[in-house]
């Protein structure tokens, strides 16, 4: 399925038609989130999946993109849409010196450094009140009332990022990245400047994530440091999107984003209100309690999901597709 292009093209066709068919703005909202996560997940996949440098701090790039757009509109009076291009560039400007510092060291340092970068950005955005208004956050008027324009912009970004990954993988860059992931010493001995190419890889990732951040600002209209620099809701979510979909696969993030947004939404709303309905219909008192716990437990489910996915399906839906298909056919 994934060798040929039919699968992804059908997926794309469905996505293009989706807002024309489903008029409910709630589901349109969810799909916009899915598309945004496709962009972020693709970015994460470039640096972590292909280059093997796992980033735990995507929120730093996401948040700086969002704040760029927000501050442009809030302080300078430009349209926040200018931030869409600039947000990516600002994220890039953060990623480049950051990569230069921490790619000199191998191993665990990069993962730790991204975590630290995440925290530093959040603290800065919280403490530097004269610039960012701190915990008050930034409010920007949304441009469109309807969700459909946002949907297509998000779709364009998602397609752009998947195409970007595909271009990288099939170009010389992709081979450099993968060689760094597989064996850094061998890559170096073949004359690949690993330090430089890791930075290139990180720049792609940061740029895409920054774009998604500015989209988020434009779409949601409100940000504060706890939301856009959140370790759990952004950085860990980005990792989950990458892992669930399939690390180091082109279409993995597209699958992972869909699964993860669905999972988090199912738990946040207790099965889209199903459990609540059940408790009212049956009149069982304990169902109310279950509903309450399920909707409170969405971070817990994230944690459990991380554990289960890594234990059982370490290469994700796309990466372990042959294994999954064999399981299904054996069950039949």
């Amino acid at each position: 399925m994934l060798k040929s292009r039919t699968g992804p093209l059908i997926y794309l066709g469905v996505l293009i038609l989706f807002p024309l068919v489903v008029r409910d703005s709630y589901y349109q909202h969810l799909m916009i989130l899915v598309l945004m996560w496709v962009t972020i997940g693709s970015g994460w996949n470039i640096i972590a999946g292909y280059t093997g440098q796992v980033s735990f701090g995507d929120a730093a790039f996401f948040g700086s993109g969002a704040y760029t757009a927000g501050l442009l509109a809030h302080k300078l009076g430009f349209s926040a849409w200018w931030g869409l291009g600039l947000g990516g560039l600002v994220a890039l400007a953060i990623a480049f010196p950051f990569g230069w510092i921490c790619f000199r060291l191998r191993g665990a340092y990069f993962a730790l450094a991204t975590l630290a970068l995440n925290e530093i950005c959040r603290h800065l955005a919280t403490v530097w009140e004269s610039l960012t208004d701190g915990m008050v956050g930034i409010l920007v008027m949304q441009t469109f009332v309807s969700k459909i324009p946002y949907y297509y912009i998000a779709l364009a970004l998602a397609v752009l990022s998947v195409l970007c990954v595909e271009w990288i993988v099939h170009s010389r860059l992709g081979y450099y990245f993968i060689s760094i992931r597989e064996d850094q010493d061998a890559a170096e001995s073949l004359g690949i400047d690993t330090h430089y190419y890791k930075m290139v890889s990180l720049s792609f990732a940061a740029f895409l994530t920054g774009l998604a951040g500015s989209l988020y600002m434009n779409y949601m209209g409100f940000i504060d440091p706890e939301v856009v620099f959140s370790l759990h809701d952004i950085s860990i979510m980005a990792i989950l999107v990458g892992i669930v979909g399939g690390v180091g696969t082109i279409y993995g993030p597209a699958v992972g984003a869909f699964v993860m947004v669905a999972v988090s939404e199912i738990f946040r709303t207790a099965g889209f209100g199903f459990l609540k309905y059940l408790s009212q219909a049956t009149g069982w008192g304990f169902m109310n309690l279950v509903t309450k716990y399920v909707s409170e437990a969405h971070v817990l489910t994230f944690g459990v999901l991380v554990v289960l996915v890594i234990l059982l399906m370490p290469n994700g839906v796309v990466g372990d597709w042959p294994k999954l298909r064999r399981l299904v056919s054996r069950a039949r």
Partner: protein
Amino acid sequence: MDVFFQTLVAGVLKGGLYALIGIGMTLIMGVMRIINLAHGQMMMVAMYLTYVFFHYMGLDPYVTLLISMPSLFFLGVIIQKYFLNPLLKTETILPENQVLMTVGIGMVLTEVARFIFTSNYLSAKTQYSDATFFIGGISFSVALCIAFIFASALTTAMFFFLIKTDVGRSIRAVAQDTEAASLMGVNAERIRNYTMGIGAALVAAAGTLLLPVYYLFPDIGGPFTRKAFVITILGGLGSTVGAIFGGITLGLAEAFGATYIGMDYEDMIGLLIFILVLLFLPQGFKRLTKV
């Protein structure tokens, strides 16, 4: 000048506990070659254990050390045996799967604690929590002093354990070269379990000792995990002596930062140190001390 010495004392006392946290982390780093991002969360579990025993049974936190340390030892062994060791055998693209796993475990621990105890701030106020004594105009917190003494004792015991005992030697052997150690008849898998257990027990001790002077809520693990990795980076990954220096340095830096720059920046300082170390002393204190 009093303020300066007061800050110095506060920093060193806090640094003793940080060293305890850091040694556990660095042992795990040395043997398993992973960073344990559930380290602070393990400490949180120990703190809640201590709280439960203090609140419902009136046990003194220092007596609870005898309960919290073994309990967390078992928790650590279970985590390593059933969640981390199996990952060594599976074929994956990412080497960091184990680190991700610790993140997941940390999230689960935090959320389970939130389920049981809700997000409210708790504290265990004992008679000595706020007690102080004075030496030459500088006040010493009784609880922190006791904690510092316990921490030093445990650290010393840890050194003897690593240098003198059979298991300790095996741990060092596996840390140096897993394959060679296996060839010499060391059961590397069991040593990994023990190491995770010991790391967890040490951080449990730190949590129990900290509880009388601190407050407790489910999210407390995250900041301490970050402190732990700053300490380990500062000391040099896998270096035990480095972790002690790293702990004291972080304690001092935080204390001076809070006094002379502002409380808001206390958490930033650790991270700033982290960046500075990466820039100027990439192998941490290990590079200077060669231990």
